């Protein structure tokens, strides 16, 4: 009988070792379990089930009609009229209002940052040169992306389109903040000028 227990325990050990190979679908245990050393007392980002919020989510959208600190209001409406208005009248703060030493000035550094951001957020469709030949276009996931050369665009319309999107292009306002949108805008203008040469 004794040997029987030993033999079975040995086989149990083998099975335990063998079963280690499967995929790890749940977390392992941690020292000090669920103490506040490990789990934050404040709400974790994106967590849910908090009774203080109506929908229980930690990630709340801004109250309608308010602007979060550090964000900039954009008054042009999301419509064809707004597009034309922005195209004709919206001008970059980087060029005109900014004093010489301002970070909002169109400078080499701002254009370099614009290029960096353009390559992340735009080039996958619009192409690194702005010719409408991004990787997604080459793979025929998106088609008909315009060449900047062939479109009458102004800094106002570029900014407006990044803000709201146009046609099948969606809004990129959540991915780029105000300053970054202008940096990208100026880089797009530069690309277009290069293409027009």
């Amino acid at each position: 009988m004794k040997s029987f227990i030993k033999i079975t325990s040995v086989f149990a050990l083998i099975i335990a070792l063998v079963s280690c190979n499967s995929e790890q679908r749940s977390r392992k245990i941690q020292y000090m379990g669920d103490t506040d050393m490990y789990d934050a007392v404040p709400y974790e980002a994106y967590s849910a089930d908090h009774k203080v919020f109506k929908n229980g989510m930690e990630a709340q959208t801004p109250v309608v009609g308010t602007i979060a600190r550090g964000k900039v209001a954009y008054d042009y409406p999301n419509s064809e009229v707004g597009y034309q208005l922005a195209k004709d009248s919206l001008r970059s703060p980087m060029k005109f209002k900014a004093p010489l030493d301002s970070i909002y000035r169109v400078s080499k550094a701002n254009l370099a940052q614009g290029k960096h951001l353009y390559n992340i957020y735009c080039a996958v469709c619009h192409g690194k040169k702005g010719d409408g030949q991004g990787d997604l276009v080459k793979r025929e996931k998106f088609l008909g992306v315009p060449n900047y050369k062939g479109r009458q665009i102004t800094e106002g319309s570029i900014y407006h389109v990044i803000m709201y999107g146009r046609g099948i292009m969606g809004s990129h306002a959540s991915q780029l903040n105000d300053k970054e949108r202008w940096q990208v805008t100026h880089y797009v203008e530069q690309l277009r000028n290069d293409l027009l040469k």
Partner: protein
Amino acid sequence: MKSVNQHRKPLRLFLSSLIFILFFTMQLFAQDGNAKNGKKIFNANCAACHKLDARLVGPPLKGVTEKRTKEWLFSWIKDSKALIESGDADAIAIFEEYNKIPMTGYSDFSDQDLADVLAYTDDKPVKDASGTSGAATAASLGIDSLQVVKGKKIFNANCAACHKLDAKLVGPPLANIADKRSADWLKLWIRDNGALRASGDADAIAIFDEYNGSPMTAFPELKDADIEALIAFTSHASILEAKAKTGDTEVSNVAEVASIPWATYLVLLVVVLFTIWVYFISGNGFLKLMMTIAILIATGYFLYAWLMGIGVDQGYKPIQPIAFSHKIHAGDNKIDCQYCHSNAKHSKLSGIPSVNVCMNCHKSIAEYTGPVTEERDKVFYDGEIQKIYDAIGWDKEKLTYIEGYKQKPIEWVRIHNLPDFAYYNHSQHVTVAGLECQTCHGPVEEMDEVEQFSPLTMGWCIECHKKTELKVESNGYYAKIHEELSKKYGVKKVTVAQMGGRECGKCHY
């Protein structure tokens, strides 16, 4: 005494066979361990900047041994800077070609490690890359196929942004449009639809009103022949697709053959049988004692390893609510990590994209068209895309958001999570240091399902801080302090650790 003698022969036979089996299995390991171990090393160290078949930060590495000698590669990997400074022409050329970003030196690699990595760059099977050109001629069908091909080109370049053939997009579907409207009407409309509407054409005004009064871009530059080609394409597009489909069978990679188990199980079985024999059959006291000691040591070893693994979730691979494949998005389609994880550049967290970011592309991509496997076929993938629409309330037939829809958040499962007592900031690593995401997260662009690649232990953090040099170029913030510190430590380049990246309070406070 007699009984011991009797047992000696089978024991010896048993031991020698055991040794033989051990040797045999070790040889097995050594043989396929080469490229396999190389892959492991490659993924852990090289994959952050190199791919096999494409340029990443550094050049593609497949077949690199055919271009350079082994000696050259060894000295390059161990210390590329020294090689460049020695005036090696090849080394200088590659340095210049890749924007003068020096490669990290791996002086701690053994020659065996290096040989394994090189074996891996040689061995990897070539991916099937038989692309098909859609421009197949269909002369046999009796339609002017050249015209259709030309029409497709014009359509893709000008119309496809707002029109699909068989479904509504921004504008109406265009398949067989010639049945509804005359060619002359279409020519007028395409060149200047505003003028056509102004002339009071009833059809033109009706279509304008139906599509929310957003005018179609005018294409005055399209000639008669272009528009005729377009019409030919919208009527006969199917002949191109039929041709393209025949060559469209992509071979999915054969699953890797699991090579470890059998040898391991065999050895294990032998060890267990031996143990049983020693305790219950042999009756040899000395052997029992030795066996007990061995078992105690082994138990201690495994117990220690298990304790050290507590709280370390390397390899954690939870089931996500949507079978989102990073391989398809970041790998095949080359969408930048930060396109979706856009918070990484400013924030502590890298951010989970809100659904509007998914919709930037999936407004028009409602169907999966890539390669499929048996478990994951087109229906499966289309169902997964449908989950986005169910979450946000998108009507994929009408291409509008459903009014008053009760949106449901997608509850992604967090994989990488540091305990609350450790502080980590993405923006500092991504924006300031300019690290590639893959440095810590591994080759995510190859993962269908993401798993935790790095252990995320403190030792792992410190190890990297010790050997990583500060990125001071184009970073005015570090210029002055770097100058002072490099004098203090008497080094050319200051590491993160010397800058304070090893102080407790930097991460624990």
